[in-house]
């Protein structure tokens, strides 16, 4: 059965000889000076469509997405706040877009000035000694951070430190990063109040401890109350303290990771500094360090000298862990973060954490009053909180997944589901500061409706969603019968 017009792939719209003629240059000389043996034999099967067909196809596809611009998107730990349009408009000024990365620094003092000021702003708001803007996403920032911890220990001849500690609630990127940096990962359990288990931490540290990677507030949506004790335990054992900045939105302008004693941090600018998430990137993951890790920062680093701004490289920073990309990181993302920071200013930055926290606590309390179980009911919410649907599951058979899918039908993107893993039937809810009370109230109503539907007609929820472009998708089949690309329909063979 041929696909309906609304389901067609761009390849299925393709017709031989059709194309967007004005987008390509005029025909030039053939490649007669390149040996035929090095030339391509068969042309790639790329779409052959008109400009209108391409524009219509991708515009229609866009309309199948939920996004911040169209829906409340309380995806926990992802900080889906409003992305100001000004950040995009000003970052896309032609002089910024057209500048080549290898152009001399003197031809880029405008853009480099913005990046340098961003670097200084980030130092100030995090309380760190120095910042490198080089990492291209949070996970690459983590990589840089742990690589610096490793370089630090090695520079002291302290080579017996083979373990990185991570709480069991940590993002998966933490253990994956530690492994990429050559470390053995040891998980530390969480106590009943949602804090890292201090006793178990004390028992785990030793001369083998390179460091602890900590998210604070944690992924459980609570502030690590024993942070001062944690800091002391790790440092006394000779380890360093890594701050995963995924949840920086909760404390921006209120508490500085540097003041909590962290040696190295990464920031997710696509979260806290509101550069867009773009359907999965690009991000930017600058790293900040205390004085002792400063020599190891990744390059290039931006410096201000008598002749203006310039990039420092390995030659200037011989102990650097090195380079993470071909050029200087995700400049266009950094520009958007800079514009956002200038729009907010000092007062606005404090308000981010305040209103993110107010929204999360308000929403948590309203949901609790509506009959939902909060995983840590005796704790304040930070910028996010965890709901456990275990009781609902036991009583009705309806899972967190079913609730999430039904929320889509109600016009809300689902919270993060099944993370952190230690909370059964978990929803991690992060409303962010840019949502209004009215929107939060509407979300509570939707959750109440879903809960009552679960009690009335659990089978219906198992079939959700009903109103989206597709019904629930078969993930098991996707993994078993891999279909990762389109192929043209086979041409019928003539005998």
């Amino acid at each position, binding site marked *: 059965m041929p696909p309906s017009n609304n389901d067609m792939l761009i390849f299925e719209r393709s017709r031989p000889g059709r194309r967007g003629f004005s987008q390509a*240059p005029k025909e030039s000389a053939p490649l007669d000076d390149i040996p035929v043996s090095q030339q391509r034999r068969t042309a790639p099967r790329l779409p052959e469509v008109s400009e209108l067909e391409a524009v219509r196809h991708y515009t229609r596809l866009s309309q199948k997405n939920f996004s911040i611009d169209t829906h409340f*998107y309380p995806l926990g730990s992802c900080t889906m706040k409003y992305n100001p349009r000004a950040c995009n408009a000003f970052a896309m000024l032609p002089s910024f877009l057209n500048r080549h990365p290898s152009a001399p620094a003197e031809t880029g003092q405008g853009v480099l000035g913005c990046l340098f000021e961003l670097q200084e702003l980030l130092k100030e708001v995090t309380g760190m000694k120095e910042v490198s803007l080089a990492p291209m996403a949070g996970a690459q920032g983590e990589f840089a951070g742990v690589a610096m911890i490793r370089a630090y220990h090695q520079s002291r001849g302290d080579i017996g430190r083979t373990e990185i500690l991570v709480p069991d609630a940590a993002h998966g990127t933490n253990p994956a990063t530690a492994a990429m940096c050559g470390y053995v990962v040891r998980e530390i359990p969480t106590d009943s109040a949602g804090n890292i288990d201090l006793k178990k931490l004390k028992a785990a540290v030793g001369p083998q401890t390179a460091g602890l990677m900590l998210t604070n507030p944690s992924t459980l949506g609570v502030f690590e109350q024993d942070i001062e004790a944690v800091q002391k335990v790790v440092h006394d054992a000779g380890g360093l303290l890594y701050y995963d900045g995924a949840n920086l939105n909760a404390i921006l302008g209120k508490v500085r990771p540097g003041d909590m004693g962290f040696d190295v941090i990464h920031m997710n600018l696509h979260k806290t500094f509101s550069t867009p998430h773009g*359907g999965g990137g690009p991000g930017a993951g600058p790293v900040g360090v205390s004085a002792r890790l400063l020599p190891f920062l990744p390059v290039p680093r931006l410096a201000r000298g008598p002749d203006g701004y310039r990039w420092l490289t390995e030659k200037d920073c011989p102990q650097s862990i090195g*380079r993470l990309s071909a050029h200087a990181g*995700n400049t266009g993302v950094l520009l958007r973060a800079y514009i956002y920071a200038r729009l907010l200013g000092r007062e606005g930055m404090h308000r981010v954490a305040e209103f993110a*926290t107010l929204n999360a606590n*308000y929403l948590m309390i309203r949901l609790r009053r509506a009959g939902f179980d909060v995983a840590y009911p005796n704790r304040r919410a930070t910028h996010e909180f965890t709901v456990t649907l275990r009781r609902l599951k036991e009583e009705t058979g309806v899972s967190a997944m079913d609730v999430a899918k039904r929320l889509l039908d109600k016009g809300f993107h689902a919270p993060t589901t099944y993370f952190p893993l230690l909370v059964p039937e978990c929803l991690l809810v992060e409303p962010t500061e840019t949502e209004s009370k009215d929107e939060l109230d509407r979300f509570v109503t939707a959750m109440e409706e879903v809960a009552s539907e679960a009690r009335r007609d659990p089978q219906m929820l198992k079939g959700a969603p009903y109103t989206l472009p597709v019904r629930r998708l078969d993930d098991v*089949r996707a993994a078993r019968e891999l279909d990762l690309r389109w192929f043209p329909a086979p041409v019928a063979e003539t005998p």
Partner: protein
Amino acid sequence: MPFIPHTRDDIAAMLKECNVARIDDLFDEIPVSLRAQDTPGIPEGLTEMEVGRLMQDRADTDGRFINFIGAGAYEHHIPAAVWQIATRGEFYTSYTPYQAEASQGTLQLLYEFQTMMAELMAMEVANASLYDGASALAEAVLMAVRLSKGSRRVLLPATVHPRYRDAVRTIVRAQAIEIVDVPYVSGTGLVDQHALSSYRDDFAALVVPQPNFFGMIEDAHTLAGLARSKGALVIGLVNPVAMTVLAPPGEWGADIAVGEGQPLGSPLSSGGPYFGFLCCKKAHVRQMPGRVIGRTVDLDGRSGYTLTLQAREQHIRRSKATSNICTNQGLLVTAAAVHLSLLGAEGLARVARACHANTRMLLEMLGAIKGVDRVFSGPFFHEGVLRLPVPAEEALRALVAHGIIGGLPLGPDYPELGESILVCATETRTAADITQYGENLERIVSRRRLDPPCAVRGS
């Protein structure tokens, strides 16, 4: 309050619901000694108009130049529709498609993108992107070592972009992988096949750049054959625009193909954001890093798209994952898919041929200047190396004064090349641009020839 919608009444009602008097009370679990640090270094907020003026001033400071640098980032025409579509809020402000049913737009686009990249590379499968070309090469090296039957050595030619080689070393450093340099032949600027044949050890992989950093076209078929004869995997590191006219990695039997996606719709933007791409043989897909989209069916049997093979990834496999990558370069891939659709295979091949023709014109014009010589002979794609009879940095600085960014000096990375520069002319350079470059360089070179250097310094 910028971007915060709360009215006074909202705040009062919400605080009452939370049973606290002030917002600050919600932070009472944070030790007092850690709270309320002032941040005097952060300036006061500006209005949108003020920030707009500031950014326009900064942009004007940088001005506009006629650019002749390639070196891993290429100035191409990007159709107007590309970024108008990519910055639609539905693409721009969504996230990783964890809720597949609410992300079919992004997911179908990524499935189409995977198909386009696989086609362009003549490979079986592609992922949904990595950060950039250099980090993608590092991921390919790690992947090849995982696939290898025991070797942790990878051959990395000196004709690979020097910054890529730096990034690879940074990223694989802690994994006991040995990166072995392969020299190039001084006359041709190509990988030294004789040196390559002489290595006796076991290797996990050979990286084959096409075209190479000098713009020269490697004999990819032969290099791939040499690698296979040593039991090593072949990693093709290629320019995607060039692959419309040059033999793509699949035609030379590569196991993995990676590269910088920037030429497919990403603006230069001082170096990023761009995107890395990675394709491989289907048999290797479970060792692939990064997100992969698969087609499946919904409860009604209708086809749809979802993240798949997630058991490789950090959020499931944690310390055993194939990579730590989470967020990738989705928006740049959105632009690339639209870009590739608008150009098609023929349009992109025209871009490739126009780049080649312009570069040929540039090399002929500059090479005709007395004392300026082509360093390497043989077929090239859209870059070339020229040796100048004057200090390269000085000549490039003089060109900047005439509004021309003339090339990348190679001496710092290749001391044996002395005062050589790497130049590039894409389809965006006109004959007039190229003539302007030629005339200015001629004047700079001849002035320098007539005046001794000390007189120049004194002027």
